[in-house]
Structure formats: structure tokens, C-alpha cells
């Protein structure tokens, strides 16, 4: 079983990101449980969403404390949220940033991937300068680093789950898939 934790802010689409990931994994023949931290979210406030992916039905109904992957939609969250908390020793990090691992202050040996999801989202007209909607780009990037979920399934899931601008969201995911690199 693979456990993923997504950190974002209310409005960035962390919860929808977990839903898209879940839809894609099911298309690729796996079973899932995707859920938000059940808080009282407001725009801009820290939001956490989770996704479990496995070959067989997932029976656990509890939070994720030791994730295999951490996805960070806004690196500024790191100033007050320990996004790496509980991350498995061989776990990996995917971050929306243009900065290096050192500049971000990640001193963990975990493999870290970066993608400029904000730049990609804005280029495709998703959200605004102050509130870019980066979820579809980041899930596209995740399909690259997590080979169990195919880009094709992610794109189909975005078409299903994105309420508006389906084409732009698909294009952003595709671009992020090709742009993501190791920090």
C-alpha cells in the first residue's frame, strides 16, 4: 500500500488533487481511499489531503502518519508546517517550487522532486497571480515520479473532476509531467 499526503492552502485544490489521483489509480486497476483532513477549511488556510493506493481494496479508515510521498502545493507552508513529518526513510517529496532543495531548507536525504506548478498554472490561465490553482499541474508531475499511475489516466481523471477549464487543466498536467525534475 502506498500512502500519499498532500499539503496545500484552501483554494489551491489539494482535496481535488487527491480525488484526481484516486480516480487515476482506479482507472489503472488499483483500489483507493482519498480523503481530506476533516477540518473547517477557509481560503488560504493550510489544508491536508490524503490518498491511499493499493492493489487490493483498502480497509483502513484512519489518517496517514507515515507517508510514502509528500506533495507540497505551496512551499511557504514549510515556514509553519512540518511537511516532512513522519515521511518514510525511503519516501519522496514533490514540491511546487523553482528553488533548490538547499534553498528550501530540506535537510532530509529523501529524494526530492521539483516542478514550477505555479508558473505552469498561470501560463494556462488557472487561477490568479495571488491564488494560482496548481492541483492539476502537480498531479501531472506526480504521474511522472509515481509510475503506478499513468499520465493518460491522470488526464482522463482531470477531465472528469475539473469543474471548468478542462483543456487548460489537462495541458497544465501534461506540461508539468514533462517539466518535473529531481532537485
Amino acid at each position, binding site marked *: 500500500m502506498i500512502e500519499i499526503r498532500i499539503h496545500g492552502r484552501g483554494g489551491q485544490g489539494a482535496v481535488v488533487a487527491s480525488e484526481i489521483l484516486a480516480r487515476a489509480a482506479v482507472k489503472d486497476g488499483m483500489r483507493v481511499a482519498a480523503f481530506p483532513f476533516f477540518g473547517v477549511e477557509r481560503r488560504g488556510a493550510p489544508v491536508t489531503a490524503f490518498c491511499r493506493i493499493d492493489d487490493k481494496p483498502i*480497509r483502513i479508515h484512519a489518517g496517514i502518519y507515515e507517508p510514502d510521498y509528500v506533495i507540497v502545493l505551496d512551499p511557504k507552508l514549510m515556514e509553519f508546517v512540518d511537511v516532512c513529518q513522519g515521511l518514510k526513510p525511503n519516501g519522496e517529496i514533490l514540491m511546487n517550487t523553482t528553488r533548490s532543495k538547499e534553498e528550501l531548507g530540506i535537510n532530509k536525504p529523501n529524494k526530492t522532486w521539483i516542478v514550477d506548478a505555479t508558473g505552469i498554472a498561470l501560463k494556462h490561465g488557472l487561477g490568479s497571480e495571488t491564488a494560482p490553482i496548481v492541483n492539476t499541474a502537480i498531479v501531472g508531475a506526480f504521474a511522472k515520479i509515481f509510475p503506478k499511475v499513468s499520465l493518460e489516466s491522470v488526464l482522463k481523471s482531470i477531465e472528469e473532476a475539473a469543474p471548468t477549464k478542462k483543456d487548460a487543466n489537462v495541458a497544465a498536467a501534461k506540461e508539468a509531467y514533462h517539466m518535473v525534475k529531481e532537485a
Partner: protein
Amino acid sequence: MIEVMTANYAAAYAVKLARVGVIAAYPITPQSSISEKLAEMYVKGELHGKYFLVESEHSAMSMLIGASYAGARTFTATSSHGLALMHEMLFWAVGARRPIVMAVVARALAPPWNIWGDHMDVMSERDTGWMQFFCENNQETLDTILMAYKISENRSVMLPSMVIEDGFILSHTYEAVDIPDQDEVDDFLPPFDPEWKIDFNDPRRFGGLTMPDWWSEFRYRIALDQEVARKKIVEVDKEFERKFGRSYGGLVEFYNCDDAEVALVLAGSAVGTAKEVSDKMRERGKKVGVVKLKTFRPFPAEELKKLNDMVPVVGVFDRSYTFGYGGALYSEVRNGIYDPAGGALVKNYVGGMGGKDFTPKNMEFIFEDLLRIKKEGKVDKMVEWINIKDGTGRW
């Protein structure tokens, strides 16, 4: 067709597939996305029946009682304070013998304010005469709603059903759900065909004053028909399995119990976590079993009595509490399996209330505690609250 959806959407799809005639609902967290999805389906013309947004949960239940009298298949959904507000009409639905099906997205009751899940709301309606079915996951929520109509509308039963899904833990979690074909559901669940209904050409009196001499007869019939329901629940579960390939045990499911040293009885979404932990502990040679209480009313006492022959120690996990005594499941289970010649020792564990995460580690703690009790041969205390900060309520 496999789709990824929350338990709330799974419930809405079940209502659509059941071709419900009248839906009346009032929004409340975490139920709201059931009634929102149904409203959306109604506006798009996808629903068989009519949808009414009413001014309160009390009105929702009142409207459904009337609609059901008129011969409609009916549905509503609620949570917590909404269910509590319905309380009066819940008795009325039973006394009027209306086979209403209601999804209860189980949630805590305030204060302090809390929108998250536990079982206080559903346990507080135990004595109304409704049948109560707990669900472990999203698929089971959809399937149970379909089965509930079939059980409730059986002319020998004619009692309403609560289909219980844990607030947020299921209601807001996306899982893969197999949505059955409409044809298959139509074949399984024929239209509601009551023995009698409101007919202006054949006037009758409903629910009028009943003198003491006859009152008990009505109550005795409800008691008898809950017993009939007990059999129908098992039959319908078997029929559902034949048709759709999925079974939930009807009243009770015993998991990993055959050679178990101890067993834990519980209901709802935590059952899955317990099964997972039980499998893991067995890999380490610790034989722990799980008893899933699918049906709380009618209460499966006879089935649970088998536990006395299976294990020397039984734990009961409650997401609710009867203040001044113990957990609601606990008192029922201990009473149900009571054997004057001995029988299993029983201990109560209370936790996961008001949305507090109940983790595999918490579950393992319970199993280890039960194994310790088995070794020591006695129960140290009746109730153990799990994962409490320090018990003072201060921090």
C-alpha cells in the same frame, strides 16, 4: 460500472437506482452532499420521483410519513442535531408502519460544537423501532440502501430503516464503488406495493386515538415484526449476494474468528481497520478475531452468543457512550451473549468520538489488552477510554 466517489454520493446513487418517489431533506453537515447531489439529479431530470427542500428535519420526516401513506417510496438523510430534531417523528414513522429509508451520516452532538463523526446520534434513536444498519465502506452504503428498501417494504415487516455511514470517515472519503445496472436493481427491488394506502375512494382512519386495551396490540406487533425482519435481513443479504456478488453477513460477520483467542465486536468504518490489524497480528502469531455488527436493530443476540464457544474474552468498541453506564454496543453485546453457566468475559473500549482518529495502533492496543485479559483470566475494569489526554479535560 466502477466509479470513484464518496459514501454520500454512493447513497445518492442508491436512491436514484431505487427509483425513490419522494425525497424530503434539510441540509446538515456532514450529510449535506447527499441531499445536494440528489437535488442536482432532480434538476437534471435524472430522478424518478420528486425532491422537496423542507424547513427542518422534523418536517422532512413528517412529509415522508404522509408520502409513504400515499404509496410512495421515500428517502431522507440527516446527521446529529437533525436526527435529534426528528426524534418525535421517528416514533411516528414506526407506529404508522412506514417503510421509510433514511441515511444517517453519524455525527457527534454539541456542545462543545463539533461537526465530526461518532455514533451518539444513532444510538440515541435505538428505542424508536427503526431498523439500524451500519456500513463499513462506501460500496456497502450503496448496497445497504438497496437492501434496506427490500427489507423495510416486505409486507411482513413494514418498518423504517436507518442506513448509517460514519460522518467524514466515509461521507467525505473517495473510494471505488461499483454502481449496479438499473435493470439489475429493478429486478432485485420491485416497485413499492403496499397492502393499503390513502385512497379517497376508500376512506380509512390512520393513527387515531387507540384505547389502552388495543394499544399494546400495536406495540406487540412491532416487536414481532422486528423478529420477522431478523430473518428477512439474512434472506435479502443472500439474495443480494446471488445477484450482485456481495454479502455483508446480514446481521453479523465473523472475521478471523474460527481459531481466535480473543474477539472484538464493533460497527461502522472502524471494522475495516480492525480487520486489517487482525490480519497483521496473525502474521505475528496473535490470533485475534473481528465481529462486525452489521445490524444493531434488530439486535443479533443469538448469533453473538456463538462467541461464548469461540473465545474466552470479548471486547466491544464503542464510538458512543451512555453516560452513567458504558458504551451502547457494550451493554447490548454483554447482555446479548450472557450465559448463566459462564461464557466469555467482556470489556468495553470507548474512543473515536467527535472525529478523533481511531488508528491501527489504537486498535492493536485493544487487541493486546484483550490478550492480556485472557492470560490473567479477569477483566480489570468495565470501560476503558482510548486515547484520552489525561482525563481531567484540562490542558
